[in-house]
């Protein structure tokens, strides 16, 4: 099981790098969806040895459906409405973003070796969670389009989800559902806002919003 969890973490890192290196919005959205599904499987794998409970399976399914089906559906719709295919000129270019993504992993590995963390079952879980949060932050600050920034937010949320899963062994179902609902509402509202921006200004370049100040 440990090898499988490690492989899943490596997959998450590779998907993060793909998100950083790809300019097509549709493929970015799909990447984040695959990452959501992969990370949604994580609680099942973590609890495999203790045996699965119905509550756990329900939460995992809810998380997979939200992250893997609902988010991409909402975002792909927003992308179609705004009629943009690709991020044209990010603030940090793609090769540099990929290398920065690798750097965040190095940084989180170093950080984890210094932090007084409780003994985690897998050594890669916490570093990858931290680097996922940092990658989400990087996407938010380095991309111009509103949809890319929503993707950054979702990736950050994915990282926080893994971190919570690792540090707090047993999250009450109510809290977890609440978090999921929050994330869903946030993405939903952001996609509506994106739609409004594109209708009002014929673009969804968040950088140009600066010039609206009176």
């Amino acid at each position, binding site marked *: 099981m440990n090898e499988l969890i490690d*492989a899943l973490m*490596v997959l998450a*890192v*590779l998907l993060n*790098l793909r998100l950083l290196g790809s300019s097509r919005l549709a493929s970015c959205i799909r990447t984040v969806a695959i990452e959501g599904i992969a990370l949604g499987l994580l609680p099942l794998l973590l609890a495999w040895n203790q045996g699965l409970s119905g509550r756990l399976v329900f939460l995992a399914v809810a998380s997979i459906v939200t992250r893997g089906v609902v988010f991409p559906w909402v975002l792909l719709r927003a992308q179609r409405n705004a009629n943009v295919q690709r991020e044209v000129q990010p603030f940090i270019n793609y090769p540099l973003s*990929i*290398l920065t*993504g*690798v750097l965040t992993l190095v940084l989180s590995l170093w950080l984890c070796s210094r932090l007084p963390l409780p003994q985690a079952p897998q050594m890669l879980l916490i570093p990858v969670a931290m680097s996922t949060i940092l990658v989400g932050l990087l996407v938010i600050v380095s991309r111009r389009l509103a949809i890319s920034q929503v993707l950054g937010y979702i990736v950050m949320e994915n990282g926080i989800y893994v971190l919570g899963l690792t540090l707090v062994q047993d999250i009450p179902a109510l809290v977890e559902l609440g978090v999921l609902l929050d994330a869903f509402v946030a993405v939903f509202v952001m996609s509506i806002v994106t739609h409004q921006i594109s209708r009002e200004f014929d673009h969804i370049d968040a950088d140009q919003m600066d010039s609206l100040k009176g």
Partner: protein
Amino acid sequence: MTQILVNILLPLILAPLLLGVINRTKAVLAGRTGQPLLQLYFDLWKLLHKGAVYSRTTSWVFRAGPMVGLAAILTASAIVPLGETSAPLHFAGDLILLAYLLGLARFFTVIAALDTGSAFEGMGASREVTFSALAEPAFLLGLAALARLTDNLSLTGILGGLTWHTWAASAPELAMAAAAMLIVFLAENARIPVDDPNTHLELTMIHEVMVLDHSGPDFAFILYGSSVKMWVLGAILVQAVLPASSAGYEARLAICLAGMFALAVLVGVIESVMARLRMIRVPQLLVAAIAFSLLAIILVLRRP
């Protein structure tokens, strides 16, 4: 003794056949009959019987380029083992010698191209140097990850030490190192996602453009050198992917050769299903290879 002879002679004899297999695969997938499997041998034979033409503006550098290039690549082929046995030339750290022998061959190709004074060749030389500057870290970091994984600093030890056990214990790292090596293999041999070997006189080519002014035996040396280079890089990739077994020497050699030709078929398939990347996207592909190698080495270093 026979093992060493086989290890030296087999790449020299079979290397041009690899290109024939690639071309045959592409022809079959495109529904053509294609050129004969032994076409490159015929080409080399023909070129060796021609005279060479040298421009008056060139110096000795232009004449030395193909010879030094071929010599460096042939030396490199002696470092790489075949069939997970001992290579004819092996010592701790020979992987660095290998990387820089290939670098030396590239350097002489580049300055021979610059020596002609042609703007077109200078353009190709500049591209070659730009892309290989990105491919080399990916190659060396990938080899470093494999070296750390097997606790060995010579190619013989590394490629012989990757067993089923290593694959079972650290599959993600090995897979990422292999992916990086595959990208480097395609880039260094001027295959399709990076460069298109079929096009001549096109503004986007990289490797072909540097050797346009070479003729006769010099051009034969260059063609033969690049086919041996493909064999050398391919042998590293294949033996890194195929786990070492405890079978007899003949069986291991047969598996390794089968792997080489499977790699040639794979390259043919890649070239048939993909188009060449736009020039400005190539660095991104190579940076992805560097990222793969970096991740592999980070994860390998994390292992206790």
